[in-house]
């Protein structure tokens, strides 16, 4: 029974978790966290099982309500979806493991609702990934978006403003998607992705379809913060509560990128987006611009979370670039980068959260040597993640760039290759800035303490926060060494037909 119902289980686990959390959490506040954590762990187990099942047995198509696809809604758990669920739920599990103390500190009175909303956020994300229906996707996009706005809003003083702006922009994005979907529906008469993929090839040149595709791409581009549509992101990630940023940044935008992959490659067909309507080219050029823009802006930031936010814009550019290249290698690079960046960015945001918990702020110019002495493990994790972001082998970050560079060279897109490589150096600049302060700058103290490392009391965060951070750092290293395994076993099987 479990095997047959696999696709629907993961969103359901999160949905029921949110119900339980909000229902019982009202009376027993302490219950909220364990329930949320347990649900996520359960979902992670299911996701892993699903991945294993999909890889050994094959994709699962699930007919919700028992109605076969064009009539009812279809859930599809194929290798790509299974891989994404594992990544997303896995990262969420680690972030939630880390969250307890941060949430207790930052939102003492509202932890129940906060966990309920996080569960709903994950419901939305997992639903988006597994669904095979274009309209159902919209519904889940909205669930994820709404909870995303809320996760942003419970942050610093300015957070509601950032969240409101995010809401406006995000709603435009979702409405664009809906409008584009209307055009597609009017021409194809179907909402099922596989069905649309069969119908559309005959209609490719129609202006309606072209505009529909354009609107969907723009809509999802907004959600994934593709370059000129990124305006909402920096404020949102900066002012959000630390846990929220760690939850949103690594996986929120990635899911929009996933939708783009799904819709473009599985819904509209590879040939179409590559040759007939060169939307893939547009995406890749925008992404390239975004990589440079994000990196340059990140260099100018003084606040660590803000720096990481701009860096996210750059990193989502890699994913976009891989999608835009529309080749197997580019696809591998993009999907691998989703995983790698999820690991790196969540690790970095958790580091930022640890720093905030420990010293109360994360302003880069005020960092100094004492931070390293007080929080050696956190800073070690930071170093690993930063090296990976720069793309030093054998860290994970190197390999996604490697595949993207291979893809760029394969298609003689030298500009993209140059952008990918140059951004490594830009990353180096802004991470190095932090690094140099943390490791080399002497604290400004009244009576300078020299050679007394033992005297400085440790202000390292609690194990429940430290463990996820270090696990992620180790994960970065492990993914670097094992990337070929992931690529060969999973991502290659997920390559869309026709690519």
């Amino acid at each position, binding site marked *: 029974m479990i095997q047959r119902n696999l696709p629907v289980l993961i969103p359901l686990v999160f*949905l029921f978790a*949110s119900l339980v959390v*909000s229902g019982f959490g009202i009376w027993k506040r302490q219950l909220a966290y364990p329930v949320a954590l347990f649900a996520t762990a359960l979902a992670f187990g299911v996701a892993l099982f699903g991945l294993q099942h999909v890889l050994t047995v094959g994709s699962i198509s699930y007919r*919700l*309500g028992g*109605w076969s696809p*064009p*009539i*009812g*809604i279809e859930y599809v758990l194929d290798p790509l979806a299974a891989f994404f669920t594992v990544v997303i739920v896995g990262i969420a599990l680690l972030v939630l493991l880390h969250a307890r103390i941060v949430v207790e500190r930052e939102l*003492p*009175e*509202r932890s129940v*609702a*906060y966990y*309920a*909303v996080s569960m*709903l956020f994950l*419901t939305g994300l997992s*639903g988006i990934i597994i669904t095979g*229906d274009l*309209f*159902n996707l919209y*519904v*889940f996009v*909205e*669930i994820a978006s*709404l*909870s995303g*706005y*809320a996760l942003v*809003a*419970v942050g610093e003083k300015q957070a*509601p403003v950032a969240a409101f702006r995010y809401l406006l922009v995000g709603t435009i994005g979702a409405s664009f998607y809906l*409008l584009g979907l209307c*055009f597609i*529906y*009017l*021409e*194809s*008469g*179907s*909402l099922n992705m596989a*069905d649309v993929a*069969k*119908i559309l090839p*005959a*209609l490719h040149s*129609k*202006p*309606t379809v*072209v*505009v*529909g595709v*354009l609107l969907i791409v723009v809509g999802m581009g907004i959600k994934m913060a593709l370059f000129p549509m990124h305006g909402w992101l920096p404020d949102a990630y900066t002012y959000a509560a630390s846990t929220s940023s760690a939850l949103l940044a690594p996986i929120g935008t990635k899911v929009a990128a996933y939708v783009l992959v799904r819709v473009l490659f599985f819904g509209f067909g590879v040939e179409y987006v590559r040759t007939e309507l060169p939307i893939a080219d547009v995406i890749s050029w925008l992404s390239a611009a975004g990589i440079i823009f994000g990196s340059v802006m990140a260099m100018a930031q003084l606040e660590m979370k803000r720096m990481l936010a701009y860096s996210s814009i750059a990193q989502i550019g890699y994913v976009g670039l891989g999608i835009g290249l529309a080749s197997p290698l580019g696809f591998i690079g993009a999907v691998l980068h989703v995983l790698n960046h999820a690991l790196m960015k969540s690790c970095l945001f958790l580091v930022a959260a640890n720093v905030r918990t420990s010293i109360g702020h994360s302003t880069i110019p005020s960092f100094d040597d004492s931070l390293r002495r007080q929080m050696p493990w956190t800073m070690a994790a930071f170093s690993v993640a930063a090296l990976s972001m720069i793309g030093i082998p054998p860290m994970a970050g190197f390999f996604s760039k490697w595949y993207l560079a291979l893809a760029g060279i394969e298609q003689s897109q030298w500009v993209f290759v140059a952008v990918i490589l140059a951004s490594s150096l830009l990353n180096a600049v802004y991470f190095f800035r932090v690094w140099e302060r943390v490791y080399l700058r002497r604290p400004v103290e009244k009576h300078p303490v020299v050679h007394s490392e033992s005297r400085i009391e440790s202000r390292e965060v609690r194990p429940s926060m430290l463990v996820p951070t270090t696990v992620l750092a180790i994960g970065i290293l492990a993914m670097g060494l094992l990337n070929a395994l992931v690529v060969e076993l999973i991502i290659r099987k997920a390559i869309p037909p026709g690519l």
Partner: protein
Amino acid sequence: MRLFRLLTVLSFGALLLYAASGLPDRGDPDAPPHRVRSIAGSLGAAAYYIQHAQSDANTPNIVTVILADYRSYDTLGEATVIFTAGIICFLLLKRQKV
């Protein structure tokens, strides 16, 4: 900046007008969404709903049948959306005890 916004909005409108010019006439009973079979041969959902709603669910209101049966999962999502909104308002506006 204002000009830029105006241009954005106008180009958006122009794009939609261009797209709408390619749409079938409004009310055309033979428009793709209404067909019994799509050009790829798959079932046209809408026609199927009209023809089978009564026999499948014993309910004459087709919209209700689609809403709560054929595409009931959508509706579950929809209910979840509204539930989410409620919890969010609870989360955002509950006064913290100072």
